[in-house]
């Protein structure tokens, strides 16, 4: 039998292999029928993930500020920070985001993200939905946004993995739920995330094993090559298992030996720059994203890291904790945009800052569809720990987008100024967000693969449309 795949596709008939089952790795059946649209405005995507639910009224969409005082009415509190002006006329951010405010002339502020209704709220479930565009559970393993991009476009630089995920550990609470969407799903492991849980030790992932000198690494590889060439398994004829193993090992060797791997090494960064980014793990993740972009990364996700009741997941002390979170993100995010612009890469790099949903002090879910509350909120606030946005709010939320064809100095959508501070103009849902990203990258709207003879689209049923108002 000496068929190639094209012949195979031609010759195969009947409903025989068509009704393929998800139980079996389907990589081998995926047909490469999707091609890139030539109108792409971006080559690289950086997702800055605000894990845990970032309250819009205390970040990028501030409302009336009510300072803390004992005995205050909870219902009267819309924002727990002062508003500060941004570079855009009439657009204010919440105090603590001044640096990002100064670069808003370089991107679009979205104030109308609407998350899905999925009943009793579980962060990881909404994160699954945000990253895959599908609500769990699914009978077919849904691929992560980054995996779709890796599959459709491949790496920009062949030695830099196409999908790099920075900053998330999976050993924390809900780790299994997080794993469920940090996957290429049916697209196959090849397109899965290259995980760097801690950017400060990121280099360890792409250099010879710790403690192994370069010369030893070189020698080891030579030994392997020599032994393969002598192994009699070749006498049994060629097969794809052997070939793919040899090829993958070769690729790994090239990556670990490549000068580009230095991008993972943050110690190579000038101190001045390093210090600006070094607000903690997230900031360093942004720095790594910058360095990787310079070497030709395709999709990078940097997260503030999701851990139940930590980070943006403010079930208490919302005000106090947000002050810290803003310190973590404000400098690095602004610097990342400035650096990308300065190096001329911002034009072809789409940077997105987003969170799975927003928060409110009173409303759990959305105003017209409240779900089971998870945080006890006293009507009269006596303790500062109750002062903050502690409930999960799905009917409004903020996102930022920069570069890669996105309009500059643009504000998209609007939320109400009084509680419930829900989206009142240009609501944008997750499938529009995904399609907007694909649009920028030139990935066709109807990109899909047949799984079990059903087309599985990048966005459910292929119905999503990109939001034209975001693009130049």
């Amino acid at each position, binding site marked *: *039998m000496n*068929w190639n795949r094209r012949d195979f596709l031609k*010759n*195969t*008939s*009947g*409903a*025989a*292999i*068509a*009704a393929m*089952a998800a*139980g*079996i790795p389907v990589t*081998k059946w995926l047909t490469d029928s*999707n*091609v890139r649209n030539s109108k792409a405005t971006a080559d690289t995507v950086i997702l800055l993930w605000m894990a845990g639910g970032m309250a819009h009224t205390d970040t990028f969409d501030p409302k009336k500020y009510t300072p803390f005082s004992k005995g205050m009415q909870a219902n009267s509190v819309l924002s727990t920070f002062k508003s500060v002006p941004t570079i855009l006329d009439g657009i204010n951010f919440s105090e603590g985001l001044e640096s990002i405010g100064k670069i808003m002339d370089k991107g679009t502020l979205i104030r109308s993200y609407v998350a899905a*209704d*999925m*009943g*009793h*709220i579980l962060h990881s479930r909404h994160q699954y939905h945000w990253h895959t565009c599908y609500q*769990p*559970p699914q*009978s077919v*393993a849904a691929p992560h946004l980054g995996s779709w991009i890796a599959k459709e476009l491949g790496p920009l630089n062949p030695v830099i*993995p196409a999908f790099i995920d920075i900053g998330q550990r999976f050993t924390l609470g*809900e780790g*299994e*739920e997080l794993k*469920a969407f940090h996957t290429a799903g049916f697209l*196959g492991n*090849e397109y*899965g995330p290259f*995980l760097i849980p801690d950017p400060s030790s990121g280099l*360890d992932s*792409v250099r010879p*094993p710790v403690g192994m000198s370069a010369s030893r690494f070189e020698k*080891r590889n030579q*030994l392997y090559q020599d032994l*393969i060439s002598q192994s009699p*398994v070749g006498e*049994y*004829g060629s*097969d*794809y*298992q*052997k070939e793919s*193993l*040899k090829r993958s090992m070769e*690729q790994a*060797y090239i*990556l*670990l030996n490549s000068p580009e791997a230095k991008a993972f090494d943050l110690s190579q960064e000038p101190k001045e720059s390093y210090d600006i980014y070094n607000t903690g793990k997230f900031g360093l993740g942004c720095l790594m994203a910058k360095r990787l972009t310079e070497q030709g990364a395709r999709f990078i996700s940097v997260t503030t890291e999701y851990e139940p009741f930590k980070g943006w997941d403010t079930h208490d002390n919302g005000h106090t904790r947000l002050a810290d979170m803003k310190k973590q993100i404000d400098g690095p995010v602004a610097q990342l945009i400035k650096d990308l612009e300065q190096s001329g890469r911002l034009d072809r790099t789409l940077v997105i800052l987003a969170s799975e949903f927003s928060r409110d002090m009173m409303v759990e879910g959305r105003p017209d569809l409240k779900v089971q509350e998870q945080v006890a909120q006293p009507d009269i606030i006596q303790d500062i720990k109750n002062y903050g946005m502690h409930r999960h709010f799905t009917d409004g939320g903020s996102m930022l987008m920069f570069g890669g064809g996105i309009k500059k100095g643009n504000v998209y959508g609007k939320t109400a100024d009084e509680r419930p501070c829900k989206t009142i103009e240009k609501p944008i849902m997750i499938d529009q967000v995904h399609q907007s990203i694909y649009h920028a990258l030139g990935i*066709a709207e*109807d990109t899909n693969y*047949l799984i*079990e003879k*059903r087309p599985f689209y990048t966005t459910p049923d292929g*119905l999503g449309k990109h939001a034209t108002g975001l693009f130049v």
Partner: protein
Amino acid sequence: MLQVNAFWLWEFLGHLHPLAVHFPVGLLLFAAILELSTVKNFHSRFRPGINALVIAGSISALISALFGWLLFLYGDYSGNTIDLHQWTGYATAILSLFTLSFLLLIRKNHKPGYVIAYRSLLFLTGIGVAVAGHFGATLTHGDLFPKSSSSSKDGGGIEKPSANFNLEALQADTGKLSVKQVTDLNTEVRAILAHNCYKCHGPEKIKGGLRLDGKHMVLKGGENGPVIVPGNPEKSELFIRINLPADHEDVMPSKGKKLKNNEIEIIKLWIEKGAPWPEDGSKEIIYKVAELMPRNPILPDAPAGLSDGAKSGLSNPVDRWTDQYFIKNKTKWPAVVNDELYLRRIYLDVIGMLPSPEEIEKFSNDARPNKRALWVRQLLNLEDDYALHWLSFWNDALRNDYTGTGYITGGRFNITDWLYKSLKNNKPYNQFVKELISPTAESKGFIEGIKWRGVVNSSQRTEMQAAQNVSQVFLGLNLKCASCHNSFISDWKLEDAYAFANIFADTTLEINRCDKPTGKFVDARMLWKKLGTIDNKATVAVKRKQLAENLIKPENGRLYRTIVNRIWAQMMGRGLIEPVDVMDNEPWNQDLLDWMAYDFVAKKTDLKELIYLIATSNAYQLPSVGYKEPAIISNPKYKFKGMVRRRMSAEQFTDAVSNIISPVFADSNLKYNPFLKAAYNGTPAKPSFVRAALVANNSFLSALGRPNRETVSTGRDSQANLLQALELTNGGRFNAVLKEGAEQWIKKFNDPDLLIKNIYERTLGREPRQNELAIARKSLGKAPTADAVQDLFWAMVLLPEFQIIY
């Protein structure tokens, strides 16, 4: 675009627009051409004719424009092309009026300036007529010059929608289509209709009175009559509409989601072929459906008295069938593999481990003529090792894992203890299935499924998960489509899926179509009535019990064929039927499958006997076959020639490394310990390392292909990839294990040659060849350091010869 009831005459006249436009187009163009040909002589003999043409043309242009305006007013049109057509049309009409005016002026007063103006205007009008006509034609007939759209994928060529459907061949076939071709073509068409049209032309929404979800409804058409003229796509409204430009008001599917080129081609072909649609229901079967009942074909005699050495000893029933198959396919029996290779295979297939050099030696020194069978039996008797190997296969299929989604909120249950003991005690398969479907507290994890917090899609509620998973795992049947809408890849209907799911439901589930409630309900019932009934009013426990009893009946040939095929695929690298989850597909040898399934039941559904039968056949012992493309293996035209080469599973690889070099996992990694005194009453000693099947999934195992068990998984990927190679090249855990092993080995062996010989024997089951020895010697040096040994280990276990089961 008035929504009021228009005076019928205006509407009628509007509809005459497409007719009327042909007058100005013809007349004015003709006038312009004649004018051009007589440009030197204004008063040529054509003058009166041209004048008449211009007069008639201008008047008809005005009338056409008026009718066009009426059509637009009452016709519910919008879109870019409409706008272009409309305004070029009006402009042309006005131009023609000016042309006419100058012509009349010339007749009164023949000034050269008037002639120039008249002629320029006439030529402009001619161009206007052509342009407006083009846009008009685009509206009616679709884009005449197809341009590339996001959907035309490979440079305008026709792409393959489903990997199997050969459109070109069908297009080339001018004769009458075979039943199978009709079925295939119709299936494709129905898939296209289902995914693009049902939303508005289905039972939920019947726009324009048109439904496209059934034969008679499609052929009947909608409010405005038939949409299909069999044999004539150009006259079929449906075909015309899907060909309109994406921004055309009438384009279908609406909302500008244009069909892909190849989909349009398929529909065109289908209409050309007379829009065949096999009858629904039981009269004719649209999709190939495998026989449900068991079948016991008469076993052929063993090929006797053959001098051909390769055929001697073909008494195993598997071989008797295979011999027939080989004769039919003109395949010769190759010689069976040698002892070393055979031993390696049965070790990996039965207990998931490599044989030690001592075992290899013992085996090759075993002089008993039936030693291969005896050793298989011996391995099958290693209850714990057997259970530890097959545990992973069943964990994948049953979505059983120590960690994963659902556990966090108590929405998932682990069944490892039950599963391990069932395998260890070789529980008959029918009992095994029964206990999974009608479970005890220990085995309920499979049927209870994974429950996420919050509200989930109705096709993924736990009752529906149970219906889908029971069908997939035990019956090789896909109910996933049918749990959302009537399937178009099989005859299973939404109602069937809900009837089946209701077996697992406390209260009858409301049927949801595409996640929307329909207000309909259906009683719990079996997928096949032949297999028995379900008492709809009974409790879930009783209904599950009835289901289990019904399913494991010997009459249910499908249950037993499915498992026989799965075990065969595990040992042979490819099932008799592929994919193993689609048991309606054709096997490469029906008799062999049927006979084995029948025999399996006759032998009290003993899985070990099934493995024994396969492992002792000559068919199993043939040299392995390697393929350049995985797709060739899954091709339905696949011809059996011997075991298909595959890679070790994550667990087999890890266990081999643990065994040969140093344990990859420690006792502290154990998630389930079968060797605790209370649980363990066997005689063999506790193994010296922790088997990979007993630990939680981790980055190492998952890089090597252990699935995350969120969905049913019935096969592993044999292909390597970069992320995996990175894990193996610089992964912390892996390199630490190799280092640890190296340090122990240099204490054991002070002679490098002895060390090399040992590592070759333990990893590859053979001695190094001269060249290999030389290379290894060179890398180790005279006094090997731990580093050098570690690197040799690394190279050895990454050799394809080590990793591939061949």
